[in-house]
């Protein structure tokens, strides 16, 4: 297993780390706790089970209810929250080599669209969060760290110029290839800097419907 300092260094450098077969006989809580502190978030289970679902079988408040077995577009998790979790870990329970998690560094978006424009771009959650809807910038700095948020379903532009900036980001991402990583073996774990990296899932064929991934959020590494 990669030591904690290696995990921290690689996530700081590349925005993510892939750890093959991380303590594959242990629970996700137990295994991922070796890498960092698992967050407890209001209204969410500490460990969430992700499995492919057809659009008709899933509610509209989750990605499967919008995209079904098709590819999930690039996004950051909980982009509609004021302060989304810093890290997320995806851990394979039942693998599917033909399904991949796509990753893209927001640094490419900042370079293409411009830091100032992204910092002025304001979005609103599509639904109230905690009883209210608050303006959120696409790009902000939190205690010296950049936080980029993106989601094409759960947030939308709040002003005219923000709409133009969001369209520029969408166009850029439409042509962004990203890196592909498959969680194929039990215990395969992908830790992602959720403030920096966008992620998405490739489409799922009927042969991969048994894929099971567990997700936890981390407050530090």
């Amino acid at each position, binding site marked *: 297993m990669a030591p904690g300092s290696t995990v921290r260094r690689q996530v700081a450098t590349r925005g993510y780390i892939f750890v093959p077969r991380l303590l594959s006989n242990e629970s996700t809580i137990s295994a991922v706790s070796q890498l960092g502190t698992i967050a407890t978030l209001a209204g969410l289970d500490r460990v969430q089970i992700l499995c492919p679902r057809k659009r008709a079988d899933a509610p509209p408040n989750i990605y499967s209810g919008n995209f079904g077995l098709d590819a999930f577009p690039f996004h950051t998790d909980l982009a509609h929250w004021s302060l989304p*979790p810093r890290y997320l870990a995806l851990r394979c329970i039942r693998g599917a080599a033909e399904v991949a998690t796509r990753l893209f560094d927001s640094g490419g978006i900042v370079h293409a669209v411009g830091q100032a424009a992204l910092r002025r771009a304001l979005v609103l959650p599509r639904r109230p969060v905690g009883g209210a809807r608050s303006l959120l910038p696409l790009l902000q700095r939190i*205690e010296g760290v950049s936080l980029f948020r993106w989601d094409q379903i759960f947030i939308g532009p709040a002003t*005219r110029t923000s709409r133009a900036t969001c369209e520029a980001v969408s166009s850029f991402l439409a042509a962004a290839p990203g890196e592909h990583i498959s969680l194929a073996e039990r215990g395969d774990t992908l830790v992602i800097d959720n403030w920096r990296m966008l992620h998405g899932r490739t489409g799922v064929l009927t042969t991969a419907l048994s894929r099971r991934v567990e997700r936890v959020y981390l407050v530090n590494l």
Partner: protein
Amino acid sequence: MAAKKKSVKVLADPHAWSKDALLAKAQRFAEEMASNTPDDWRFMLWSTLALELLARAALANVSPTLLAEKEWPNVYYALGHQPKTNKFVPRSIDITAVFTRLREAHTGLDPRLAGFGVLHMHRRNEELHSGRLSLDNTKNSTWLPIFYETCEALLVSMDETLNTLFDDETVATAQAMIAAARDQSSKAVEGTIRAHKTVWAGKSAPERKQLVAQATAWATRHIGHRVKCPACECDSILTGVPTGPPNKTLKGDEIIERQTHVPSRFECVACGLKISGLPQLHASNLGDTFTVTYTYEAAEYYAPDDPWEGYEPDNNEP
């Protein structure tokens, strides 16, 4: 010893008095402000709203508790808790107190800028609470440079820049205005104006009358913004450079194009006074940005340029 791991709290919804929530709202108001031209009263009204939110964000950046009215439930609320008090509505301090606290809280806001902030809020209150059109006839050169300077000081206190609120073109204009207002050397132009005033006063009445008529005709024919000369008060011309692309609106069959200009040159043909440069124009009370408006027929606007307009269509000999 291993370094302590740093954790950042995860929050679903931001605190209404948090720096980030207040700054985001200031950004929204600044965008509305910038969608109007600086000589439009709405530009100034949105500027007052943006400045209030920006000032509150800067104070919240020190601590949201500084925004709380004195009763303890307000302080408790500012700390992120919900008081048990029945029908509790959080109350924050008024904006004058916000500027007073900013001035005394090492935010870099000097008394001059804090004083402007209070004055700007008074203008807004007069606009909102009385029937007087307080914002309609305020020359933008009297408030816009110090407005941008105040915004910049508040943003810097939060480790931000003017680019957080405004696009690149507006920031460039704002910085030129701030520099012009600070430029003391430009005060020399006041002597030039006095000299032209003296020479003008020495001219005979018939000569002045003839020059006034010539100046009016000249100012009508020439392209530029017509203003009164600070020396002889005749019609004269101010020209400038655009601050960004024109704003186009469609009204019936006409396209109206409005473009904000920063003044760069002044000329009066009556007394011969010429002034160049924004700092000198600002010192001469000619530093107001102005809007140039063009009206086109939609067909004319979208029609491609035709160098042989007026001739029959091209034909290889009839």
